[in-house]
């Protein structure tokens, strides 16, 4: 059975890809500011470019994940989407938020916290949009949690915990949190760390669905092993945020719990994907090859980032790596190498359901995809190199200016490879974007949404 067309899903994919393109452009401009310090300093300083880049790239992840869920839920539930009106309202609010936040950043209107730098009242709109999405999901799927596959659990968890964490991230508005720097910083790390876990749940849920669709083996998402790893992932989402707070003088217990739980989330996914590969070769070696290939590359990125995760989670190593670009390398590796590639596998799978299996797997796509991964690897290594160089500079008690001078060659590599990552994603996503633009709104007689 084919996945039917979803107009809301298509809208979200188009918003997501557009956000990514623009977000990466700001990322490239920010990279140039590292190399040429005076570049756009007055007109579009780093103070504006960074939030523009971060917001738009996170918007890509959330919108692409939402688009995939809108596409998949009629298929997995066998029902029409509960309300297209709610979905349309969700799209409209999402667009209003996007325009409002981006315009505000250009005008220098901030007031929020890191990663959510916009004024806090905009969060009310985000919550409203999310509740509409949740209503559509839960009423359409009507999940019976005793029986549903693990990806339904994963999506449900992602939906619930994004709502909780976006509210938690606003606790600083209360004096009890705002007046106490240790509490404020700890709760901010807690909320943002778990929020990343919530979007991972949405992305991983879709990745698990893609694996089932490719292999045709429904047992992989219903096995005890799949649920064991889901619950381990949930434990990480709830309690693993603390490895960011080793240097914050909160209670020792926060650090101990974080270290004990450690960062096993990526290991969990690597295991699931490893199982999937074995199943794939056993059952269905010629279907959705492109999505399979993308997931395989994501698997390689998981392994690379796992090494970094361990370095961040071990307190003795964290002492040196914290506050260095190694943390940025981890963030870039996970958001581009893992989340973006897993979302791309969903976008490609659905697009190929519309145009025919294998139609996107062209020599052009292949070359672009390899170019993207090589660029990302150089970009990632330059950040790791920058982090190591910064550790040495701090150890040698260099001033900030001396340290920046030592990091300069890395900035050059980081900036150029960052532009190549932007170009690589542009090349890879352009045919996908065109497919959705051309066919994503076309009428389909059996459209369940």
């Amino acid at each position: 059975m084919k996945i039917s067309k979803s107009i809301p899903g298509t809208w979200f994919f188009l918003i997501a890809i557009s956000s990514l393109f623009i977000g990466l452009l700001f990322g490239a401009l920010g990279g140039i500011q590292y190399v040429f310090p005076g570049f756009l300093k007055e007109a579009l300083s780093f103070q504006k470019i960074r939030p523009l880049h971060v917001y738009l790239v996170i918007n890509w992840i959330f919108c692409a994940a939402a688009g995939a869920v809108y596409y998949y839920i009629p298929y997995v539930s066998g029902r029409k989407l509960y309300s297209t009106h709610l979905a349309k309202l969700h799209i409209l609010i999402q667009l209003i938020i996007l325009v409002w936040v981006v315009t505000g950043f250009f005008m220098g209107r901030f007031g929020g916290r890191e990663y959510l730098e916009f004024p806090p009242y905009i969060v009310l709109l985000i919550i409203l949009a999310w509740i509409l999405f949740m209503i559509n999901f839960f009423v359409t799927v009507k999940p019976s949690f005793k029986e549903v596959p693990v990806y339904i659990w994963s999506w449900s968890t992602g939906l619930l915990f994004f709502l909780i964490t976006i509210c938690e991230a606003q606790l600083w508005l209360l004096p009890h949190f705002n007046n106490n720097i240790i509490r404020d910083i700890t709760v901010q790390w807690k909320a943002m760390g778990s929020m990343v876990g919530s979007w991972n749940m949405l992305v991983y849920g879709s990745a698990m669905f893609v694996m089932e669709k490719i292999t045709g083996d429904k047992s992989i998402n219903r096995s005890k092993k799949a649920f064991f790893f889901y619950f381990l992932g949930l434990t990480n989402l709830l309690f693993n945020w603390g490895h960011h707070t080793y240097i914050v003088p909160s209670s020792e217990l926060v650090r101990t719990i974080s270290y004990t739980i450690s960062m096993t989330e990526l290991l969990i996914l690597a295991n699931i994907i490893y199982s999937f590969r074995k199943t794939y070769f056993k059952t269905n070696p010629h279907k959705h090859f492109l999505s399979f290939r993308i997931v395989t590359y994501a698997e390689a990125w998981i392994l690379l980032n796992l090494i970094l995760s361990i370095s961040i989670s071990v307190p003795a190593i964290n002492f040196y790596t914290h506050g260095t670009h190694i943390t940025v390398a981890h963030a870039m590796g996970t958001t581009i190498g893992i989340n973006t590639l897993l979302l791309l596998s969903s976008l490609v799978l659905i697009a190929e359901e519309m145009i025919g299996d294998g139609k996107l797997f062209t020599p052009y796509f292949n070359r672009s995809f390899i170019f993207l991964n090589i660029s990302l690897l150089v970009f990632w290594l330059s950040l790791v190199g920058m982090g190591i160089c910064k550790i040495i500079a701090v150890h040698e008690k260099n001033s900030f200016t001396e340290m920046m001078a030592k990091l300069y060659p890395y900035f050059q590599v980081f900036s150029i490879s960052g532009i190549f990552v932007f170009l690589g994603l542009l090349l890879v996503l352009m045919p996908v974007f065109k497919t959705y633009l051309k066919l994503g709104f076309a009428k389909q007689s059996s459209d369940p949404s």
Partner: protein
Amino acid sequence: MQKLLIFAILFITYITYSSWVYTRGTDRASIMTSNQEWGKQIYQEYNCQSCHQLFGLGGYLGPELTTVISDKNRGELYARILLENGAIRMPNFHLSPKQVNALIDYLKYVDANAFTYKTDGK
């Protein structure tokens, strides 16, 4: 049923742990004065976190500021000069003297509570 039970146990533990983090787990810091609070508000409104870190939160284009005040090589004067004039990467935000004072006051508060950064471990 078993899955729902595990979920419920994890969720209840999360709520309990969160309540502890919101209270006793983070009660080491002193309370800000109103001027320090204003300084914090300015820090957010000018999005200083985009380039500077406090307790590891923030960007890397500018120097870490958690202990900028007590740092022997930097100190209050260094922070004040940058706030009043900008730098090669930092625009001049044309802050008023009261705003600069509030920001300095806030940074002093942060520094005083950065126990884990101080070698004596207080």
